[in-house]
Structures are given as C-alpha cells and as structure tokens.
C-alpha cells in the first residue's frame, strides 16, 4: 500500500464534515490497508509520530530553489499554507500536459511505513534528502500528505477519540475497550489490529499513569425516571460548573486527562503539584480559591493557555473537586460499588485535602421531592454555583461509557428570555441550503433615544426540522440586507420574529457590545404570536446577570 492511499484518506477526511462520514472513511481505510501501514496512518492521525529532523523552512528553501523565490512568495500568499504551497509548486518529474491516466500513481511511490521508518533512522541532512527524493516521485496529493505528515499538524478534523471509535467499529467492540488499552500501545499497533480482527489476545494495558475510560451520566427525564427510581438506591452530588477530568498519580507518574483522554497536565502544574497520593481520581477541574469555586469564565482563561504564567496561576489557581476513585495503592477499584468507592475516596483524601484538592460533598435527601426542592433553590454558598445535581446508584460499579441507569444528571432549569431575530446565516453540511445560524437581540435605548435591538447571542439548534423550514422561509421573505453569507432580517418594534431563547448562564464580557455573553443558548420556542416590541430588554438581562453573580438563592431562575 503506497503513500497515495494515505494521502487519499487525508484528502477525503479534510473535506468530509460529518463525524459519521469521517468514521466510515477511517474504518474502510483500516480494513483495507495492510500492516504496518495502517498502524502508521493511525499514529499520524493521533499525533503519535514526530519527525524532528525535517523542518518546514528547509522544505521551503528546497522548493524555492526548484522554482523561484518570487514565484514561491506569490503562490504562498495565495494558498496561505506552507506545506500545501510547497506540495503544489514542486515540479513533477514528467510535467507533460496530457499524462496517461494512472501514471501519477506509479510503482515508485513509497509506502507510508517506508517513509516513517526511513525518517526515524535518518540524521538531519539525510532526512531532508530523502524527503526531496520522495517529493520528486509523488503526485500533488501525495506531496501534500507527506509534507503534512512530517511537518506535523494534519488538521483533518480527526481526534484520537474519533480514531478509537473507528477502531472499535472495525472490531465490533465498544470504544471504551479500545480506550482502556490505548495508553499501552505503540505504533504500528500490530497487536491492536490482530486483536480487533480476532487474530490475537487483547493487548495488555498495564502502563502506569494511563487514562481510564470515563463513566458518563444520562440526562434525567423527570416524568419517566423519577416514577421508577427509588431514592434510597441513589446518592446525590452537586454538578459543578467546571470540566470533568481524571487525575492520575501512579508509580511516580502524574497526569491530568480530559474526559476524552487528552493529557492536559502541562496547563495545570499547580494542580499537578498537589497530587500527593497513589491512585486515580475522577473529579471536576475548577478555579479554586480557599475552597470556593470560581466561574467557568475564569477556568476558560486557564484552558486557553498551554503553559500558564505564574501571574495567571496566582490569580486563577486550578484545583480538583474529587467525586470518585478508580484506583488506589491496592489496585483497580472500578469493580466496586459506588458506596465502597466513596469510602475509599474519603479515606484517601483524609489529611490530604488542601487548597488545590477537596472532596465533593454528598447531598443528603430522603425523597425525590426534597431533592427537587434543593435543586430549585440550592443553599447559599458553593451549592448555589452548581449546574444542578448528579444521581449515582450506590451499588453500581464504575462502567465506562454512558450506561443507562446507574448515573443521571439533573440539570437546573435553563434561563429563558424573549429575543428578536436579527441576522441569519447559512449552516454547514446538511444545513447548507438553510438559514440555520441565528443572531438575536433584545431592546435597548439608542443614544438618540429610540428603541434599538442589541445583539446578545447566537443559536443554531433547539428547533425541529419543521421549525427550521419555517425559520428559513421567514428569513428569505423578510431579508432587509445581505452581507456576504449573512442576511439581516426585518426587526422593528412593530415587526419581527420573537424567539424564546434558553441558556445555561450569563457571563460578563467586554468582547460583546451588550457587555454580556450567554452560555449554551438555543432556541426553545418560536413565538410567532408575540409582538417584537414586547421582547425583553437589555436592562433586565443585566439585572439577571447581577443575580446570577450573587448566586441563585438571591433570585429565581427564569425571569
């Protein structure tokens, strides 16, 4: 299998928007490509390869020498990507205008494994010479794939999690089974493919410090679930407004993983320092100051930095609020019931809680009615900042994936406002012929004294297919102006479409004109009946923001 097959895969992945389509392409490639090429393709896609001896600038100089620096510069300006420019501009060996079909994929094309293995054993000068020789033998897509591969950053929209899902489909198993052994695997993954194809035993997953696939909760359906569940079977916890992480401290190795298994340790050295225990803990990453959680916006500034400055860490210290334990010094605990794991977690944290690490408390309750009341009006303090509640079955083991029954999330009701549709933009993929991305606004006072709409958010889901059609028709019929792909819709106090927008929270924002930003806005209902002039105003949104900042006990959710 030549590099051309890998190039064709990358090319298709880069242009396939849907997850389903990407999975199908990956699965077909892994099924049709022999070892070890498919393993190297997997490694390339998941970022497991590194070619330190080939530098993008050396490739550029080699291309300039073959063409002309001025021609290269104009081309680079137009294309905007160095590897792509070099790949397109590289002179083909026989640049006849009418080459016979098929001539471009001759037998001289190197295999992906040949490329990877040869570069691994080459010094700097040798590696560069090899790359130039391959470029002379490949077609444009092949050259692009080669240059993307060796200069890093394929950027074809494939995460390691997506690749593992494709592997799981290939083997007819759950993705969590692949996740479980992932950390112990090395390219070109011969043992993995042998196992997936039923030719070998599962690879062992003993690597200390590895990620364990996480257990996820189902959303609670109040009317259906609460009628059938017994309160005594479940523990309740607050659902914290941070990000779910798994922290591992095993055999001297410490890691912080996102819930998809990406190591994010580098961004949180302050938390890493605090992991003075042996074990694996599941919990919420938060900005923690003296035992109090910061806002999600504060955490966001930490997530945006790969390496935080000292000042940022001092201002926004990261911490972990622990709620489960997967392993301790005695070994794997995932087979134990939640009740038993909770005991182990509390035991492990005894004497170890600190400013960076604390325990998520259980919420005592006796009936669903009690719990519903707590959810509606949480006690002041930390609970007031939670997104809702988590329910966990006392007797359930820790099961990877999203099993139905053992864990539920019971989010608090969203906030609702009535806003007016202002702009619409066409969607992507399936929705590319529909105006499906909506910007909406609320009323405010213009400097001249009149009522004008201030944009406060964008939403592109929450509606049914039938509603989308109706929204699309409304946009097309009432377009006032067009700006490229954007349409401005007629919206005055006497005419306009009112959208009831649901959202999870408000944050102060200097980047937005209205001075605030919504979290997870979506269209809850289309108010065909409501006059635009009766939609909400910006002052009431700011009042809501102030109430949210004080904590919901100071006010009720929906205005």
């Amino acid at each position: 299998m030549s590099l051309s097959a890998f190039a064709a895969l990358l090319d298709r992945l880069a242009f396939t928007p849907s997850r389903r389509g990407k999975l199908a392409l990956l699965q077909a490639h892994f099924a049709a490509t022999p070892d070890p090429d498919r393993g190297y393709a997997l490694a390339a896609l998941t970022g497991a390869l590194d070619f330190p001896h080939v530098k993008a600038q050396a490739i550029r100089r080699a291309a300039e020498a073959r063409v002309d620096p001025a021609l290269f510069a104009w081309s680079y300006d137009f294309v905007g990507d160095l590897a792509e420019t070099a790949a397109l501009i590289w002179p083909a060996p026989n640049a006849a205008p009418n080459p016979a079909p098929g001539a471009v994929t001759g037998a001289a094309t190197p295999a992906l494994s040949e490329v990877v293995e040869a570069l691994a054993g080459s010094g700097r000068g040798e590696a560069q010479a090899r790359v130039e020789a391959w470029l002379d033998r490949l077609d444009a897509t092949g050259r692009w794939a080669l240059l993307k591969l060796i200069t890093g950053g394929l950027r074809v929209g494939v995460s390691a999690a997506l690749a593992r899902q494709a592997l799981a489909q290939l083997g007819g198993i759950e993705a969590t089974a692949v996740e479980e052994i992932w950390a112990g695997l090395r390219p070109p993954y011969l043992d993995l493919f042998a196992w997936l194809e039923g030719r070998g035993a599962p690879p062992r997953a003993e690597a200390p410090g590895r990620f364990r696939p996480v257990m996820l909760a189902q959303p609670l359906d109040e009317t259906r679930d609460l009628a059938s569940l017994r309160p005594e079977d479940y523990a309740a916890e607050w659902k914290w407004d941070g990000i779910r992480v798994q922290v591992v401290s095993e055999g001297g190795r410490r890691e912080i993983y996102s819930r998809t298994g990406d190591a994010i340790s580098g961004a949180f050295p302050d938390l890493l320092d605090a992991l003075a225990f042996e074990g694996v803990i599941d919990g919420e990453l938060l900005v923690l100051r003296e035992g109090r959680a910061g806002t999600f916006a504060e955490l966001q500034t930490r997530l945006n930095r790969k390496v935080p400055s000292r000042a940022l860490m001092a201002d926004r210290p990261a911490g972990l609020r622990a709620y489960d334990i997967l392993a301790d010094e005695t070994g794997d605990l995932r087979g134990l019931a939640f009740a038993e794991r909770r005991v182990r977690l509390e035991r492990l944290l005894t004497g170890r809680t600190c400013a960076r690490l604390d325990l998520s408390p259980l919420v005592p309750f006796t009936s669903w009615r009690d719990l519903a009341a707590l959810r509606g009006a949480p006690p002041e303090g930390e609970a007031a900042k939670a997104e809702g509640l988590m329910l966990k079955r006392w007797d359930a083991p820790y099961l990877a994936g999203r099993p139905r029954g053992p864990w539920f999330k019971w989010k608090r009701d969203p906030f609702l406002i009535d806003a007016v549709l202002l702009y619409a933009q066409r969607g992507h993929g399936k929705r590319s012929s529909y105006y499906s991305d909506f910007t909406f606004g609320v009323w405010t006072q213009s400097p001249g004294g009149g009522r004008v709409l201030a944009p406060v958010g964008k939403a592109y889901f929450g509606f049914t297919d039938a509603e989308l059609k109706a929204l699309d028709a409304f946009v097309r019929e009432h377009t006032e102006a067009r700006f490229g792909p954007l349409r401005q819709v007629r919206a005055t106090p006497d005419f306009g479409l009112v959208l009831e927008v649901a959202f999870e929270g408000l944050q102060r924002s200097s980047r937005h004109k209205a001075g605030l930003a919504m979290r997870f806005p979506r269209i809850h209902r289309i108010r065909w009946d409501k006059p635009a002039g009766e939609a909400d105003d910006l002052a009431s949104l700011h009042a809501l923001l102030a109430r949210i900042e004080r904590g919901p006990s100071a006010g009720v959710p929906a205005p």
Partner: protein
Amino acid sequence: MVRPASVLVPRPAGLYCPPADLYIDPITPVDRAVITHGHADHARPGHGAVAATPQTLAIMAERYGADFAGSVQPLAYGETFTRDGVEITLHPAGHVLGSAQAAIRYRGLTLVVSGDYKRRRDPTCAPFEPVPCHVFVTEATFGLPVFRHPPAEVEIARLLAARAEAPGRAVLVGAYALGKAQRLIALLRQAGHEAPIAVHGALERLNALYARFGVELGPLEPVSGLSREALAGVISLAPPGALTTPWRRRFPDPLTAVASGWMGVRARARQRGVELPLIVSDHADWDELTATLAELRPEEVWITHGREEALLRWCELHGQKARALAMVGYDEEGE
C-alpha cells in the same frame, strides 16, 4: 513593418483593432466584434456585427435570443475574412465547444488573441491549435505555479469512487453550465459510467445544443422529474450557485462536489463547503501556459488578465519579452 501596438490596442471596452475597426470580446456593446467563445464575460449581447464560429453564434442565440446582434458572420475554423486589409482567421482554442483563437494578420504581422484556452484533451471540443505568431495574447487565470491541474480522468475516477462508497447518497456536482458540465458528462461516459445523469434545468438547453453539434452525452434526465428516492446514487449536475439554494433540499444526503480549477487550493474548496473538490478546469494551468509560450516562442507575449505578475516573472526568467494589458471585465472566478 507596422508596430503590433498599432494593430491591437487595449481599450476599456476590450481589445481594439484600429485598422479593421473592430473589437475582440468587448464587454460593452460595439459596432463590430469578433467573439472567441460563448462564456458570458466574452460573449455579450447588443453588438452591431458579430463574427464567431457557428457553435459560438448558436450558444449566443440560445442564451440571448436570436436577435442578440445586428448581424452575424459565421466563421468556421481556418476560414478567413478580410476587412480593410486585415485578415482574421479563427483557430480552435480547446476551451469549450466552438471556442477559438483569433489570428489577426496585417502587413506581415501576425497577432493571435487566444481567448480562454487549454491544452488538455477534451471530448467536447476541438483541440488547441498552436499558431505561429509575432504576438501571442494570453490570459493568466491560473498563472501561478501552484495551479497544476491533475488529469481530468483521475478526478472523474475519484468522483466515481466516492459515489460507489456512498450508495445511499445523491452525488451533486457543481459545474459551469457552458462547457464544464458537458465535458464532465462526456468524461463520465468515457470512464464507463452509462447510467442516466440528472441535470439542473439551467443546463438542459446547452446540453441539447452540444448534442445538436454532435457531442455524445448519453442518457440525461431533468432532476425535476426524479423523486427524492430515485436521486440516491445518481450523479446530478447543476450550476455551482444552485448548490446552496433551497433547490438542494430535494436530494437525499447529498455529497457535494464542485469541478473547478480553483478546487486545487484547499482553503478555496473548504470556504465553499465542498465535500469532494474536483480539480477540472477548462483553462490552461501553469504548466500549460508556460509550455505554450515555450512552444510558440512569439516575439512578444501580451497578458490580458489573471495573475499576470507571476507569468511576467516566468517570461523574465526565460528571456521572453512580455507585457501585461491589465484588462478588466473578464471574471474567471466561476470557472
């Protein structure tokens, strides 16, 4: 000998030939025009007298109605007409059906206005004919060395492979209505695709015109006559603009392809939300442009429009005298 610059002069309306008092491909109505081919930016309605190939005249009549000009003069390839001592002969340009280069001969001087051209094989039109000349007037739409169109057959094979991979999906291909669409259909037939091809209403009349001129396109059906279910697995062709209109919704889970020379640049393809970019162009790519100049070796190269700075640079590097005319009004974005 007369100077070339007095035989052809760039004017706002187009290239003007003073001794014969006529324009080549004028963009505003003029008394006398020679039209190289039927694309809308070259062939406009409202001129007095028009000389062009019979195919180009038919295309103009189809698009603009029979009264698109005061009078018409059909000129077959190789046929010459003379006006005030200027001889004008049309030669195939290989761009679209009826496309021609205009060779202008005057007092021992030959200038060739190539219009739009390509050097690839194209089953729907006569191949480009190199005409020895003193001045070669060329466009430079794809005048950057990053534009290197792969063989069209390879792109057609990719299209057919994508269709075979996704049997439940409609395959929706955006292609320029004149030339590109018919060339794709002919190439699909050559690749052995015999199934009916569905076409957008905007393509029907030009397809019929091509068939009248003997271009075999095989079984075609209007998209409007097919149910949603029937469109699955079928290759449908439409003008690129139709792909983002409500018209698209009749297709089940459409796989969107666009056939254009611009598809060679990934950012361009992504910008347009294309799932399968097909690099198929009716314009010369960089290798064709430079190979043509090297083959003809004219005394001067004049570049009408496009990326002239890069082609000028190539001419400088290869000792070829060249100048840019910087003509406006020729828009090849939709190519």
